[in-house]
């Protein structure tokens, strides 16, 4: 009798443990959310963002549009933790973690990624060596300096397969990072990194700018292959082309450091066709600030 009781208790405990594990995993797999509240950012003495609100969930595509100088790239840099872009007010938060407290390396390990508008050159550093280091750190966020990297063979296979998927020449892996790359090659390099790092939140800062239409198509298709239920995407763009392949759930319009309108994919289409004149009319206060800012810089 006593033995039966012990056995029953043991089974119940077992079940409870299994249930708890299940719940913990479910919790972990819950959709992450990047929450930006009332974000103010300045560069030097100049305030650029003046209270941005934005929420991006995993699996959503957001387009961010707006005239030059409205603060789109500033938002991208501030989210990634560029030291020159100082948050003076407001918060950036992922599932209760205060992102603003983290340096860019910690943000990357938390699952953030920025495809740069102007990727820098790192001479002498091979793409493959850099990527192996990067994905080891991002996938094992607790890795300490000097601890082993991902096994070479496993990495090479993954890199080869990913490059194939993106129609990239394997020769890329042996070149020095962005050294002597054409504009299109640099942007594809960003997409390759996106594919390898598999972030939860990807920020694409004018990834389509400066490219001819074939290159834009390649990059757009690449992004379309990669985004899915596990990735929240913020696409900063002037053009519509990138959005044809990656139809946004939301389109935001930025003017003078604020998001002044949010709509669906048709808003992007409308802005592309008609420009920002109507937006300025609907938001005279921000339009006036924009005007003042432009005069100040001239």
């Amino acid at each position, binding site marked *: 009798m006593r033995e039966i009781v012990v056995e029953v208790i043991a089974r119940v405990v077992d079940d409870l443990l299994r249930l708890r594990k299940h719940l913990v995993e479910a919790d972990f797999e819950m959709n992450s959310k990047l929450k930006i509240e009332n974000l103010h950012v300045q560069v030097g003495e100049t305030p650029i963002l003046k209270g941005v609100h934005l929420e991006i969930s995993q699996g959503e595509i957001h387009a961010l549009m707006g005239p030059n100088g409205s603060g789109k790239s500033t938002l991208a840099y501030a989210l990634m933790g560029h030291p020159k872009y100082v948050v003076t007010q407001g918060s950036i938060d992922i599932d209760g973690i205060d992102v603003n407290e983290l340096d860019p*390396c910690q943000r990357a390990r938390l699952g953030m990624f920025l495809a740069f508008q102007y990727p820098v050159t*790192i001479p002498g550093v091979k793409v493959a060596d850099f990527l192996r280091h990067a994905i080891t750190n991002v996938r094992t966020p607790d890795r300490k300096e000097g601890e082993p990297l991902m096994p070479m063979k496993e990495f090479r296979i993954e890199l080869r397969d990913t490059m194939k998927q993106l129609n990239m020449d394997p020769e890329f892996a042996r070149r020095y990072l962005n050294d002597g790359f054409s504009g299109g090659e640099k942007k594809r390099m960003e997409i390759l990194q996106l594919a390898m790092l598999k972030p939860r939140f990807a920020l694409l800062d004018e990834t389509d700018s400066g490219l001819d239409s074939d290159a834009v198509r390649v990059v757009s298709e690449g992004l379309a292959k990669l985004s899915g239920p596990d990735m929240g995407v913020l696409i900063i763009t002037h053009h519509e082309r990138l959005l044809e392949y990656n139809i946004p759930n939301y389109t935001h319009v930025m003017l003078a450091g604020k998001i002044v309108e949010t709509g669906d994919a048709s808003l992007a289409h409308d802005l592309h066709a008609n420009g920002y004149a109507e937006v300025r009319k609907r938001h005279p206060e921000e339009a006036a600030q924009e005007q003042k800012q432009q005069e100040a810089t001239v």
Partner: protein
Amino acid sequence: MSTDIADNTDVGVGAYQYGFHDSTDNYAFTSRKGLDAEMVSQISEMKGEPDWMREFRLRSLEIFDQKPMPNWGGDLSHLDFQDIYYYVKASDHQEKSWDDVPEEIRKTYDRLGIPEAEKKYLSGVKAQYESEVVYGSLDGDLAKLGVIFTDTVSALRDHPELFRKYFGTLIPPSDNKFAALNSAVWSGGSFIYIPPGVNLEFPLQAYFRINTENMGQFERTLIIVDEGASLHYVEGCTAPTYSSDSLHSAVVEIVVNKGGRCRYTTIQNWSNNVYNLVTKRAMVYQDGLMEWIDGNLGSRLTMKYPAIYLMEPGARGETLSIAFASKDQHQDAGAKMVHCAPNTTSRIISKSITKDGGRASYRGLVKVEKGAVNCKSNVICDALILDPQSQSDTYPYIEIEESDVTIEHEASVSKIAEEQLLYLMSRGLTESEASAMIVTGFVEPLIKELPMEYAVEMNRLIELQMEGSVG
């Protein structure tokens, strides 16, 4: 006997890991400090040298005394020639087996990884400890082919004709104050002869170790690569970390005959209390090739400008130089290329990295003699400065006496850009991993010229230098 780790090993900055020293109690001979004719005669006598060599030494001492200290390059004002031991002999014999090398010394070389390297990828090794070579080996097959790899003292005894034909002909004592000093008190070093047509598959290596405080090491190396032969020679250097200074002043002379090739790789990693003042010169004859690969990571002050004289048409010279200067270090390094014949080519690539207040200077000369038409020379020097306290300067000298020549000089100075750090960090690298990656990339064009084993060693040394350097 005990091997103790020096207390003042500087672990905080770049962690110099060869700063330990051994006991000197059982040394065979230690000279008194200071330099005069009596000391020079005593060295000569102890070595049982012929009269001509003793006279050569004494004449060199006179030249040394007459020549003023150089007033260019680095700060030599703290160097006191009377506070130095000029001849220190730790062991009475040179051994052919590591088992016979005194235990204390053998342990040091074990820690430096020399016997291990010898087994894996070297054709021969010379280990110089203080003033004398304590261990020597050469692959048996090479010896049968007529290859000579011995210490310079033995060469004077065993190969007097070959020795006298070349010794002091490329770098006479009158060349400069430190060449005169070396000529007066030289001891140890390598003597190599590669017969015509013999190509060495694996490098020969010499390893120089200073152990005594205030020691002066003055090795003398002479290399002759005969027609159509080839050699890769590698030297490494370390010393204990002491609070007072030691002096290393070597002379290296190399002759590359018609169609021969010689590559001389130095990985200098002296501790930060060593003055490293070295004269190196090679003469290259028709269609021959000389390459200096010069890595300067250690020392308090290095002044070294390996030279190549291109003597006949088709001769080529190349110098690849890496300097790393950290706290209290000045690397004044560079290269000299002298075109003495038509259709000769030279290339100098210099890369320097400075941090924590270190200073690196590139000092180079490209000279084209009258009649040396159709010469080509290409000089590239790049400096990477890691913080505002550090300094880099460039002194390129060009002397041309012909019009039909092609000379190119490019120089660049860069800092690690904030944007580069941001880019790498945004991919999950820490700030110090990112800086180390940028530095490694900066020197990569040179590192890839090194044989794999040395490339790995060099990268490891640079990473060590970088460790803890970023707050």
